[in-house]
């Protein structure tokens, strides 16, 4: 079975996918054939593999520190405190524009415009 021939640009696009085992058998074969012939791409693949292995081998999952665990448990078992803190959090962050507040602003603007139109029409009616 002949696999297709890749150029370096095509191979580069496949390298990360190969490192993460996302290539189909056909693409995998095509890439391997290219890597056999191309030291530059081969080195690129090797390096990316090594970085991934380094991370997964040497960066262990850390436990939540006891102090933080205690704080979180305290929050989770106290609904009132949680509700108060999360409410005050949003009050203190002026840039936290939620979609709901934007909608409210538009709705208020529409209501105001409608009132002005009605006042205008009413005044025209009474003047005539």
């Amino acid at each position, binding site marked *: 079975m002949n696999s297709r021939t890749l150029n370096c640009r095509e191979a580069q696009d496949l390298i990360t996918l190969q490192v*993460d085992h996302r290539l189909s058998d056909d693409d995998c074969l095509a890439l391997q054939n290219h890597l056999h012939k191309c030291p530059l791409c081969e080195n690129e693949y090797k390096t*990316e593999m090594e970085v991934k292995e380094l*991370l*997964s081998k*040497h960066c262990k*999952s850390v436990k939540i*520190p006891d102090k933080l665990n205690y*704080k*979180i448990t305290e929050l989770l078992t106290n609904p009132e405190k949680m509700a108060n803190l999360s409410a005050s959090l949003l009050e203190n962050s002026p840039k936290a524009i939620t979609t709901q507040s934007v909608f409210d602003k538009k709705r208020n603007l529409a209501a105001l415009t409608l009132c002005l139109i009605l006042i205008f029409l009413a005044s025209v009616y009474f003047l005539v």
Partner: protein
Amino acid sequence: MAIISSQLSSQAESVRHHDFETEIRPHLTALYNYAFRMTANEEDAEDLLQESLLKAYRFFDSFERGTNCKAWLFRILKNTFINQYRKTAKEPGKVDYDDIKEFYNTIKVESADANDLEEELFGNLLDDTITSALQSVPPEFRTVVILCDLQGMTYEEIADTVGCPVGTVRSRLHRGRKLLKDELSEYAKSRGFLSEAI
């Protein structure tokens, strides 16, 4: 009437709180790890996690039960990080590898035949070095590298969390790993740890 309705609303609040706790508990350790790797600092990670949990609580009603809670929580944390730390982040300076090298030489001399101890100490040292080096990688690349290589998420889960196409996840991974590798290569060459880069 008012008493009944206030009882009902506090009951509803109680249920909501219980639901929230049930949904988030399984993901807390993973969330902390993500926060820690993004900030490389226990205190900052603690603040980041707490603020993210409070936000998640506030917007819990917008979360569709039964969908991917982990991705939702991670996205909140990622956005909180971007809001807070991009503004206050120190200049991503070079890691001072001389201090690390000197430390390693010291423990190597002092523990002559304690190979296990050396491996454990070296392993922790490398962990710290990688965590520090990650700080020099821009946040959008740092995030995908952490989520893929440390959290073990799939491209689809990462895309869901970060809010970008799967193709973008792939290209950011490629670039992020390369940036991390460049940052680590100075230290790695002195230890003969990674193969020589071109």
